[in-house]
């Protein structure tokens, strides 16, 4: 479908129309700092009031991953009175993630590949298949922590149905999929004119000028750079600061390791099996029942995370394991930076 344009004043009406057939999640202003009125805190949430949607948002603590890969998800239900007859629990309803930044769209595409690979995981995939993604292109880096250009997540080819680009009083609307086309039907769009196309072109050029690479090597070399660093002293040096709190995993848009446990109903007649986010940085992550711990040292756990982000997920899924969003860096109370680590190992032996 040819590109369209939507007036910014018509955005609310579109969101309202979308909300009739699916839940809409979008970035919303949650808090303003009492000392600095310019310091705004945004978060992803389901929209109750279209006017709350803030497409001028900067990066959130948690990405939109949580709507597809919730921190807690029931996967199995069974009876404890008589025959257990365990049944799968698939919880999904149509939703649209509205205003997803390119890095997060790229991250979702990584999760898609991981969960669809080999043995498919319908608990994730059914939610994903019921989710439309309206992407919002970035005109400038969120802050100096982000390194999305390096990690190849700034210009996502897939992982979205519609791409919005903000330009003056309008959005340039690109449609990628059939689902995107269906969603656009309820928007008051017009065919993009030659001027709109030129404006989009100008946006792309401004965007290119605004982002700069930060790693001293091309990302295609990252797996090899990591491999060469396996025995480096850098891991021990960085891990000395690590508290093994797992914040990095919690905020990461591509982390998907989980733990699973049984919950029993109060009346003991039924139970369910629930999976929750887990973190490879916690000291029990690789422990077995007998007490043997296969990643006892903090440095081996830290290295494992960096390797997963820079190499293993890529090897396994063909998609990047780190999108350079910078969330783990911002969340780390010990100021450990994945970007700085990638820089450091390039120069270490």
């Amino acid at each position, binding site marked *: 479908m040819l590109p369209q344009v939507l007036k910014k004043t018509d955005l609310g009406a579109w969101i309202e129309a979308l909300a009739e057939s699916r839940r809409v999640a979008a970035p919303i202003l949650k808090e303003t700092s009492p000392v600095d009125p310019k310091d705004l805190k945004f978060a992803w949430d389901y929209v109750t009031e279209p006017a709350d949607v803030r497409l001028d948002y900067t990066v959130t603590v948690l990405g939109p991953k949580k709507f597809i890969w919730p921190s807690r998800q029931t996967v199995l239900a069974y009876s404890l009175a008589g025959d257990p007859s365990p049944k799968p629990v698939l919880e999904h309803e149509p939703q649209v993630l509205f205003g997803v930044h390119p890095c997060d769209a790229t991250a979702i595409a990584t999760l898609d590949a991981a*969960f*669809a690979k080999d043995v498919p*995981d319908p608990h994730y995939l059914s939610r994903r*298949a019921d989710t439309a993604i309206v992407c919002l292109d970035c005109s400038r880096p969120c802050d100096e922590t982000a390194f999305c250009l390096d990690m190849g997540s700034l210009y996502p080819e897939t992982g979205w149905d519609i791409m919005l680009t903000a330009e003056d009083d309008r959005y340039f609307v690109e449609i990628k999929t059939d689902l995107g086309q269906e969603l656009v039907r309820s928007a008051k769009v017009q065919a993009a004119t030659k001027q709109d196309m030129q404006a989009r072109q100008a946006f792309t050029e401004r965007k290119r000028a605004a982002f700069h690479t930060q790693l001293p090597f091309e990302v295609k070399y990252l797996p090899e750079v990591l491999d060469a660093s396996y025995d480096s002293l850098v891991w021990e040096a960085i891990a000395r600061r690590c508290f093994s709190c797992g914040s990095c995993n919690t905020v990461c848009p591509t982390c998907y390791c989980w733990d699973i446990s049984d919950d029993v109903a109060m009346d003991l007649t039924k139970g369910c*099996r629930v999976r929750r986010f887990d973190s490879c940085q916690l000291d029990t992550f690789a422990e077995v*029942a007998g007490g043997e711990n296969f990643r006892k040292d903090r440095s081996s756990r830290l290295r494992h995370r960096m390797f997963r982000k820079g190499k293993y997920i890529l090897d396994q899924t063909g998609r990047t394991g780190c999108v350079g969003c910078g969330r783990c860096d911002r969340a780390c109370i010990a100021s450990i930076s994945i970007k700085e680590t990638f820089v450091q190992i390039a120069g270490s032996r």
Partner: protein
Amino acid sequence: MTQVDMNVAKGASAPSPYVPRMARILAAEQMTETERFFRLRMEGEPLRYEPGQFVEVSVFGVGEAPISICSSPTQGDEFELTVRHVGAVTGALRAYKAGDRLGIRGPFGNRFDYEAMKGQDVLFVAGGLGLAPTRSLIRYVLDKRKDFGKVTILVGAREPKWLLFRDELQAWVKRSDAETRVTVDRCDKDWKGCVGVITRLFTQIRIDPSRTWAVIVGPPIMFKFTVLEALAAGIPEHRIVCSLERNMKCGVGKCGHCQIRNVYVCRDGPVFTYDQVKRLREGI
């Protein structure tokens, strides 16, 4: 639509890999103070498995635990598990007896490559609970005895009271077509057999390194030293086989707990050759 998008659409309606099927316990026996043996049969389709694979055992209301299958498919439609009581699920299994039902997922993982071992000598070295996964292949090899060359079975335990499959060990010792030796680390005067760590048994056996496969399963410390013995005997690294213990939670290469570098033990293992383990570095 990209390939991944198509896989997402297809996978959305795929059967959940996390739903156990029910199995009936046919026999249960407390083998030692901490280990319990179960013989089970699936309700409906029997479990189709290979030596070296494992299952996820569900105790509803408690959880799930990965357990090696200790029987061989040559034994028929039933399958056997040996469970050590160490956690919540395995602790709950203490109370399970014949007639009770359990949830089973699987089988998962690769297998011992018995095809490659055919016509060759096989040396089994099993320490402690390592005898459980090893037994799946021992039983297979003994049931298809003519397909294999010389068979040597070395079994070690901390003390006589921790020895598993005692009756079976005795039967193996009596066999003329296999050499079985059992040792314990320490004992009282009632024990008439060998005393000492399992590597000591290597001085009592003869190995033809040009045609021997060594299958070594036990705690990491035992594996380390036994591998040295096998290498010293001249067995090449790619014919030394082990089964790794990890916290396999999902069984399908997703949850991340059993990951060693780029390998998911639940999917790519648990059986690895020593040259593979050596390259992994974090294996043992």
